[in-house]
């Protein structure tokens, strides 16, 4: 029995460590099974280096046709599950074919890797980065080990950032003017603004601001669009009268937001919208949606 078990066990244990693994920031990532794991965080143009340890089990030797490590950037569409599209693929050969008898360590380095896209976990699409170590064997099947890591790219504040200002209404019923101080927000930003009531003939019960994410995947006729409401923030309670102005102040930090992604590798886009919703006493909803751009601002080292 033991023998048999031993036969199906992988012959060795592979582990991957990053050079600055102890100091590098870890961010939580939700896996398929719902588990949340911490993964190291990188950004584009960083050098990804580390060590790979291959540890054969007691008394075993590993015969192989070579050892390599790959850095893969993958997009996975959920309707096409299991099919990964690699938009980045780098390979480092670590060993020529041979045998491993005891623990062996291979340093590796991908220097200044171009990783243009951020890690993204959406409803219908996932973009991830992974290190893949392969111990190639012939008949026995290769031994593969993965190490996910996260990529986030920071951008400087946009030079032009106009406010959003708009007057909307239903004739002789409701006229409002709203103003958000910017059109582009970073992820920890605060939305400030005001809602002016120019004409109110309906009995408003309350007013909310929703933050919505619109994720579109695929292209052409196969485009899938998925919209989620990430936040519902009450702005006003009760019925305003003409001339009232209601302040808007929404902190974005509590919400799980990502930067806006436009046409990532022709596969998907992620856009954000502010949706202003007024609800009247008969629970009718009046809303106006405005796109905003989210970007990731380099956090101050604190």
């Amino acid at each position, binding site marked *: 029995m033991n023998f048999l078990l031993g036969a199906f066990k992988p012959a060795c244990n592979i582990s991957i460590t990053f050079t600055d693994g102890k100091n590098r920031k870890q961010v939580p990532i939700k896996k398929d099974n719902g588990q949340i794991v911490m993964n190291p965080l990188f950004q584009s143009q960083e050098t990804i280096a580390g060590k790979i340890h291959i540890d054969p089990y007691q008394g075993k030797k590993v015969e192989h046709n070579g050892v390599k490590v790959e850095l893969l950037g993958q997009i996975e569409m959920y309707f096409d599950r299991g099919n990964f599209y690699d938009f980045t693929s780098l390979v480092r050969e670590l060993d020529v074919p041979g045998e491993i008898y005891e623990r062996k360590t291979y340093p590796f380095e991908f220097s200044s890797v171009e990783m243009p896209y951020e890690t993204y976990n959406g409803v219908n699409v996932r973009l991830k980065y992974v290190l893949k170590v392969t111990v190639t064997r012939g008949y026995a099947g290769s031994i593969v080990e993965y190490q996910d890591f996260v990529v986030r790219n920071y951008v400087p504040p946009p030079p032009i950032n106009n406010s959003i200002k708009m007057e909307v209404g239903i004739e002789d019923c409701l006229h409002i003017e709203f103003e958000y101080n910017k059109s582009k927000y970073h992820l920890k930003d605060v939305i400030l603004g005001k809602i002016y009531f120019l004409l109110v003939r309906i009995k408003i019960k309350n007013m909310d601001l929703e933050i919505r994410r619109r994720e579109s995947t695929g292209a052409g006729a196969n485009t899938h669009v998925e919209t989620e409401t990430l936040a519902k923030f009450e702005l*006003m*309670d009760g*019925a305003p009268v003409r001339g009232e102005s*209601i*302040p808007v*102040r929404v*902190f974005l930090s509590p919400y799980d937001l990502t930067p806006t992604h436009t046409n990532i590798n022709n596969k998907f886009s992620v856009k954000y919208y502010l949706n202003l919703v007024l609800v009247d006493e008969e629970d009718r909803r009046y809303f106006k949606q405005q796109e905003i751009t989210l970007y990731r601002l380099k956090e101050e080292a604190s």
Partner: protein
Amino acid sequence: MIAEDDEKWLAAANAAVKQNAFYMQRAIDSNNLKDALKFSAQMLSELRTSKLSPHKYYELYMRVFNELGTLEIFFKEETGRGCSIAELYELVQHAGNILPRLYLLCTIGSVYIKSKDVTTTDILKDLVEMCRAVQHPLRGLFLRSYLAQVTRDKLPSIGSELEGDGDAQMNALEFVLQNFTEMNKLWVRMQHQGSSREKEKREKERNELRDLVGKNLHVLSQLEGVDLGIYRDTVLPRILEQVVNCKDELAQCYLMDCIIQVFPDDFHLQTLDVLLGVCPQLQPSVDIKTVLSGLMERLSNYAASSVEALPNFLQVEAFSKFNYAIGKVVEAQVDLPAAGSVTLYLFLLKFTLHVYSDRLDYVDQVLGSCVTQLSATGKLCDDKAAKQIVAFLRAPLEKYNNVVTILKLTNYPRVMEYLDHETNKTMAIIIVQSVLKNNTHISTADEVDALFELAKGLIKDFDGTIDNEIDEEDFQEEQNFVARLVHNLYNDDPEEMSKIIFTVRKHILTGGPKRLPLTIPALVFSALKLIRRLRGGDENPFGDDASATPKRILQLLSETVEALSDVSAPDLALRLYLQCAQAANDCELETVTYEFFTKAYLLYEEEISDSKAQVTALRLIIGTLQRMRVLSVENRDILTHKATGYSARLLRKPDQCRAVYECAHLFWADECENLKDGERVVLCLIRAQRIADAVQNMTNASRGTSSTGSVALYVELLNKYLYFLEKGNTKVTGDTIKSLAELIRSETKKVESGAESFINSTLRYIEFQRQQDGGMSEKYEKIKMEWFE
């Protein structure tokens, strides 16, 4: 039903609050900030309910309020543990629902201010601005009330340790003002919530919430550093702007009252024109009179309490401002009922009397304004207005306690013109009573004229009114006042006094048949008093054309009394004629005396038909005539003759008898030698005795029926004889007396006369006189009677 539901919802909400508060407390105990925030937000969510009535909502609010106290302390401790307060300030704003978010924000905000990490101003501004997000009136009101409550003790003021500069303090002011404005808006808006069917109930509920709004004004007044300048330039205009703009009756009324009650008197005085300027801009339905009266009352008290304040009143011309403002209000509020406007003037008048008691012109001005107002509305008809105007007219009277002062007010009578008859009379009584009570000295004819003009409600009937239902007693009482009033008019100068009398007469004669009998006597006696005074002084010191000669006055009286005879009060007229005759006699005016007698006789003959009245009248005539000295022999004869004639024609014999023996006196005047006609005296007595005999016969004829009168008559006669005997009438002889005495004795033997005591005392008197020394006993010697043995 609804109240029950209310109760149920409140209980549910209370339970939820209690539970969440428990969890919150547990989180606090274990320093779990996240949970503390979570449960406090949940607890606060209970305040989002729309189901509760304001009253119940208040209960719920108070419960939550108490819990928030713990949270505030926790926040404070949390900052001590290194959690940045700015972070906390942001953190609470992550709450998804607006109401809990803002309550938490206010709570942390108050901690923030205390921590001095940040300028108070910024936080206050932020809080008051953010609170705009709650537009639901009830919830907004309570939220802002909470804001006011937690920031109250943290507002910067001059010298406060938080921030010293004036800017911060102005900003604090701004904060309170803004919060006030917003709260008031919400409060006003409440009335439009829900169906119009329940409007009344809603207004009642709204009224219960008014103190939430008013508290802001209280805070303002307590705010240190708010001096007159700031009050005048910032605080008041801002408040008033809101008051005017909200266009809501309830709010305007309450807030105006609040302003008046909350801020110091001195401020009001200095900003009077601003405050008053607002009044006409208020809604027509606002009860301005309550507002203004409150203000005037306060200022009156202020003036009363501190003497130093008085110059300020003058300086700011408080009176003219009030007067002007009230005029404006009345003008602006077309629908103001007469009672309302009169009440306004009443308060102004009271204020004026309090503050400017020495400025009669002001008082008159108020009256004048009132007249102008009344002239637009016409006569006052409703009870309320009448009551107010009586109070209005009464005020100066009570203040000065002197009608003479009132008479100087030219507009006073003009106001009275607008009263209905009943009220006019009431007012007249009040005026007259004031004179009587204070014993006011009214000494010129002009004043008297004015006074009677004022009191004309008492003096005469009004055209076209028939007072059927006047209580006789009341009426007499009223006229008694008039009579007493007449006696109160007095001037040492006879000339003026006579003018007064002329004036009084002029007014009194308009009184009509019911009043004259009650008022004329007073006038007559007052005039007679003057005549007596004139007689005592120099003979006609004024020359012939002066009005104050006795003759002229008597002439006047004659005419006056004549008015009485026209109104079927002949008894009274007769008496007065006789009084006048007496006065004329005293003034040695023969013709006038004769004239009066003539009138009296005529009255007797033509008007007095009742036999009892005749007896009385005749006695009076005889009595008066007896004392006449100025009459010539002829005239006297005529009058005496007439009187005796009347006596003989009386209906009842005993009356005849008595009248006739009274007439005997007409021929005998003690102090006047040429008026001692002993013979005619005796003749009279004999005639009287004859009548007594006739009576006696009649009595005997119908014995047993009644009268014992004749014996009494004889005794009376006996007394007369004795009288004249004593006076020295030589024609009275002892025989006559003796025979009369005999007659009496025989009569008393026959029958129980009932006059024994009279007889006995007469006899005792005779006995007594006889034993006296001197002349008397001599005279009595003649009438020794065996009766006495």
